[in-house]
């Protein structure tokens, strides 16, 4: 089947600094259509489309929008562009190549839920994306797309670009609120949830960039089109971040539910390195490893649950059999140790202890009891941490140990044994 990309259709075809280009390529037609439909109809459309959040948590966007649309003002809409999950680069490419689309999607969100203030929180290590989105925001103010009485439709919306400052945890939505409020990025306790008590204690819609951009074609092309793409339980277009040992890494837009096999061999041109597939990391450092036996599983939120894997932010990182899996696990453990915020004990202490054990594993110096400790630390972080960072900090490491034939006595991963 041939799929016509919609989220990435303008990339490379328009000047990202030009509002004229954007308008000529269909820009702001979705906003005009949204204004015709009215807030209630947009929220209903989103609910019926069952658009699941593309940032990693897969929460239905329509539920957030409905709750906030019914909540009292003042309220806020936020684009979570703090893209920091290792292996993820989709939102950066969207913002660099089609920044006006994000502004338009934020306008629709604000119009639908009745928010008059919004923020786009972009990771600090994305200077070009920040510059382009800021330029798009400034241009939209000058053109009357932002500010007072937009499109003469009587609604007002102010939009601010915020720059992150080097903290993975701020991609966690409540830590992101704290960061905008000028504090350390400590995640809050939930409940209360953002739709009730979010930024500045007010009802807040917060969505990932890709999730927001899905709203544009949904509004323009309608529910039937959206539902015709991908599986019934998680429909719509999806961006896959294909990287690692493939011949053609890059951003792939395909229907939700595309298989690993299609991504690696059709889009990616096959496995590089040894040429033989060793495993795939799905969902990034916070995700899990899968094996070649899983090549035909449907890459969607529900499909991956059947093999104890996650889609997360759409990371598909490919490892051939020549990869030193121990060096990979060292980096994952180091990453979480570095990025734990330190608020709750399981993650603050567990990411350190996990890193120490994985360093021993990588050095071939595991002690008796280390693997049991690693599993118990993992279970404790998953069960008892405040937020998703700690809850997922052990998943990739434990999945590698379980799925890649780790031999405790020799310290080898049988599947990746060709080099040593």
């Amino acid at each position, binding site marked *: 089947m041939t799929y016509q990309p919609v989220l990435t259709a303008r990339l490379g075809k328009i000047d990202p600094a030009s509002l004229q280009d954007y308008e000529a390529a269909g820009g702001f037609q979705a906003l005009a259509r949204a204004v015709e439909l009215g807030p209630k109809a947009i929220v209903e459309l989103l609910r019926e489309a069952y658009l699941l959040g593309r940032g990693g948590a897969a929460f239905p966007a329509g539920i957030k929008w409905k709750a906030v649309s019914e909540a009292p003002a003042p309220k806020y809409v936020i684009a979570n562009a703090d893209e920091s999950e290792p292996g993820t680069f989709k939102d950066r490419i969207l913002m660099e190549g089609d920044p006006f689309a994000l502004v338009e999607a934020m306008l629709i969100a604000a119009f639908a839920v009745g928010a008059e203030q919004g923020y786009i929180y972009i990771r600090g290590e994305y200077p070009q994306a920040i510059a382009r989105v800021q330029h798009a925001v400034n241009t939209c103010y000058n053109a009357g797309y932002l500010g007072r009485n937009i499109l003469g439709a009587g609604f007002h919306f102010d939009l601010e670009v915020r720059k992150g400052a080097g903290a993975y945890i701020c991609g966690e939505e409540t830590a992101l609120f704290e960061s905008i409020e000028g504090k350390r990025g400590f995640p809050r306790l939930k409940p209360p949830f953002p739709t009730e008590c979010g930024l500045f204690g007010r009802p807040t819609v917060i969505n990932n960039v890709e999730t927001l951009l899905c709203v544009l074609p949904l509004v323009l092309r309608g529910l039937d089109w959206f539902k015709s793409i991908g599986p019934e339980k998680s429909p719509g277009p999806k961006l896959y971040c294909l990287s690692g040992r493939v011949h053609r890494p890059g951003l792939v837009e395909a229907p939700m539910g595309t298989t690993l096999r299609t991504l690696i061999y059709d889009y990616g041109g096959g496995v590089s390195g040894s040429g033989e597939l060793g495993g795939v990391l799905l969902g990034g450092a916070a995700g899990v490893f899968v094996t070649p036996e899983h090549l035909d599983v449907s890459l969607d939120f529900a499909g991956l649950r059947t093999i104890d894997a996650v889609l997360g932010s759409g990371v598909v990182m490919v490892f051939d059999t020549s990869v030193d899996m121990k060096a990979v696990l060292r980096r994952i453990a180091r990453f979480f140790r570095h990025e734990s915020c*330190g608020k709750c004990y399981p993650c603050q*202490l567990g990411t350190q202890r996990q890193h120490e054990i994985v360093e021993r594993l990588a050095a071939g110096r595991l002690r008796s009891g280390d693997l049991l400790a690693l599993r118990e630390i993992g279970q404790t972080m998953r069960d008892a941490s405040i937020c998703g960072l700690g809850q997922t900090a052990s998943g990739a490491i434990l999945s590698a140990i379980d799925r890649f034939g780790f031999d405790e006595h020799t310290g080898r991963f049988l599947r990746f044994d060709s080099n040593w």
Partner: protein
Amino acid sequence: MASPGATILEAARSAGITIPTVCYHDHLTANAVCRICVVEWMGSRTLVPACVAKIQPNARIYTDNERVRTARRVILEMLAATVDLSEAPELQTLLAEYGADPHRFGSDAARREHGPVKVDNPFYVRDYDKCILCWRCVQVCAEDVQFTFALGFNGRGFETSIATFFDRPMPETTCVFCGNCVGVCPTGALKGKREYLAAQGAPIGPR
């Protein structure tokens, strides 16, 4: 029967069920950072902290099953492998009760060490090797009691520590020496200077 709006911890107490706590303090905002009070709420994906989670009718909650005990034990083991708990008798009791073995991580497991005890004012000393990051001192110094804002944080993750503004000595901060932080410290990280000197064997003269 628990009153509406009660936390699991309050409900358990009124039913005579003990749930262990570490960071929790009756008179301070509960932040649920230590996670020692986690319990299993049937239907919840993760364990939930009893100090903040509100009880609901017909909830099935296990306060002491295997899953709960494992989490508590591992947290205690990791904590004791990191921090000097020699002056935290309540934590010592918990370690024994849960059969926690802090030595399982090896003698080379990183500890949080902060150098010499900070003796920079006439009233109290700060021994951060004993600090478990319960946040109580920061809270009483801020919105929970005093609104003085002398205490905050350094670093992040495992390397988080309690600190003054750019590590300045207490007399150079906004500290008003109210003593609230010393009063709520559970581990002897903050203690009166006289008590500290006495333990050092220094002669105590008239004040």
